[in-house]
């Protein structure tokens, strides 16, 4: 006989809560270890216990040649991620609008774009390298590397835009036309402001996917490494906490990117709220 209870939790709650806790530890504990170890003193090693506290390894990261060309890697990865961001937003948004009205062959174009999500990155990387070499084109991070990254970010951007534009009722545009807006005005004053948060999401994806992309970069960026490749190289020949310091720095940059994205959404909302309060 089960007793009547007032909201007593079933045993499954505790099983699932334990499972979830284990998952969170698995997800974040390794990262936390790296961040903590990166702030060690000069005598620190790759494992616990911690020996002192300093920023030595961050200096070592950009100072000495023996840790590899970290500064150079950043100077390639950040511009690359930014170019990818801009192109991903431009192409995904315009393509998203094109797909809103079913055009002839739209299904084929869609599946072609999505196919590059399924093809293994390394295989794609080899293909792009071969193509560039065969056509005698320069293999650089800003040529073949950029193209390789776009094969990864564009399908994502397109899928996000589909989700956003799918929720955008066509009656907003029709209302704009009905109120005398030209096609351009409807886009500028109605559609883009409504889908803008979605465009920021596309930008964020474009940036972060490019910034930490490894398999598609491996063979396509040419002789100079981007950051993920540099980190990979360092794991094979650097045996100091400088490696961890690099992990901390790249994480901070990712957080900054996310903060900029969320911050700009919050800023837009606040500006709108202010505009409302302006006349009363």
């Amino acid at each position, binding site marked *: 006989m089960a007793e009547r209870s007032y909201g007593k939790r079933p045993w499954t709650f505790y099983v699932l809560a334990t499972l979830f806790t284990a998952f969170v530890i698995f997800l974040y504990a390794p990262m936390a270890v790296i961040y903590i170890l990166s702030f060690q003193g000069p005598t620190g090693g790759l494992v616990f216990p911690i020996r002192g506290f300093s920023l030595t390894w961050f200096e070592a990261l950009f100072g000495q040649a023996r840790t590899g060309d970290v500064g150079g890697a950043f100077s390639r990865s950040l511009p690359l991620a930014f170019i990818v961001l801009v192109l991903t937003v431009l192409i995904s948004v315009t393509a998203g609008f094109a797909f809103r009205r079913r055009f002839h062959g739209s299904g084929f174009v869609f599946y072609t774009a999505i196919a590059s999500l399924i093809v293994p990155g390394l295989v794609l990387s080899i293909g792009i390298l071969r193509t560039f070499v065969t056509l005698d084109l320069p293999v650089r991070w800003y040529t073949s590397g950029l193209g390789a990254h776009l094969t990864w970010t564009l399908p994502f951007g397109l899928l996000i835009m589909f989700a956003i534009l799918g929720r955008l009722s066509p009656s*907003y545009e029709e*209302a704009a*036309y009905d*109120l*005398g807006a030209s096609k351009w005005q409807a886009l500028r*004053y109605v559609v883009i402001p*409504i889908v803008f948060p979605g465009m920021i999401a596309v930008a964020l994806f474009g940036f972060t996917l490019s910034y930490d992309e490894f398999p598609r970069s491996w063979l396509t960026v040419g002789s100079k490494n981007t950051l993920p490749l540099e980190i990979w190289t360092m794991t094979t020949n650097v045996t100091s906490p400088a490696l961890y310091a690099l992990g901390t720095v790249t994480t901070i940059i990712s957080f900054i990117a996310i903060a900029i994205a969320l911050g700009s959404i919050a800023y837009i909302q606040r500006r*709108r709220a202010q505009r*409302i309060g302006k*006349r009363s």
Partner: protein
Amino acid sequence: MDQTARTTTASAAAPQMSGEIRLVNLTKTFGPTQAVKSINLVIPHGSYCCMIGPSGCGKTTILRMIAGHETPTSGEIYIGGQPVVGLTPVRRGTALMFQSYALFPHLSVRDNVAFNLKMRGVSKEERYQRVDEMLAVVHMNAFADRMPAQLSGGQQQRVALARALITKPRVLLLDEPLSALDEFLRLRMRGELKRLQTQLGITFIHVTHTQPEAIALADTVVVMNQGSIEQAASPHAVYALPRSAYVARFMSGQNVIKGKVRASDGETALIEGPEGARVRVPLNGKAAPIGSDIAVSVRRDAIALRRGAGNGELGENEVRGSVQTVEYQGIYHKVTLAPVGGEEFIVIEPEDAFFAHPVNFGDAVVASWRTEQVHLLEPDATEGPAQPYAEDRAA
């Protein structure tokens, strides 16, 4: 279907800013389906027209074609005598109020209403002054700085109305404007729409699927079925003198009885209906050849109920039935009898008559009426479903 629509050709010399609408052989096909089938209709300037019909009957498609958001497959639309197919909504002088209202979620009430003026490059000062005037018309001044999401359904509707009217249209098109409101607000906004239309003197075309709404508001009710017009006439004509069995059933003011003509004396005809019922119908000059199949309608509020099964033969204009449901509606009782010959049979009894001899579920009754209350129906214009909205139609 020319005989079903009111086709007038005497309106060639319409004034420039007239809001008279003329639809000529208007047709719209979506792939294999014909949504609108060669419609002819004239809606006079400054009148209130309600288009009514079940979902998918083509009424919204017609509205969208008049608004310029849908291109006709063939035919022409004239507004104030000017052909408008291919013109932008603004050049047509129409404004559409969307069913969802489609208020721009990122703009305040004021900026929503000002949108048209902004697109036309009107200065901010003048824009906001005219917006405030328009908001006063719909009693929304106090909410000018709110965002649409902060408004109730009724308030959103007023804003949508103001936003449409600021374009100074000669035709206002309303796509099921009251369907998103609760009953109380619906009745209030209904009154306001009528008041506004009278005040502005422009043409209103209002699409609805609610019968009381249509007959309460309209100068002309257009009853549609499967892309064709079944009847376009005054609310009284549509309700009291339905052209076809479809209209009678749809407007739900009348019971339809089908039968064969057995006798005729030129003035009236005697029809043999289901279960031996004999119905006499005035012909009013119409022909009813003996032996032909025919349908007539009887007003639901002109039928008397006699308790008990009655003994022996039924007289003329009488049917026997058993009570299925009784609904109290305040000023009357709606008594539904078991279907007579497959047709729904409803009696509207005034309160005092009902309470004098109440009936309950299962009671045997005899329903009777006078010959003047019987109306001869023409065949349906379209072969549609026999009972539109059979499940959910209002009394």
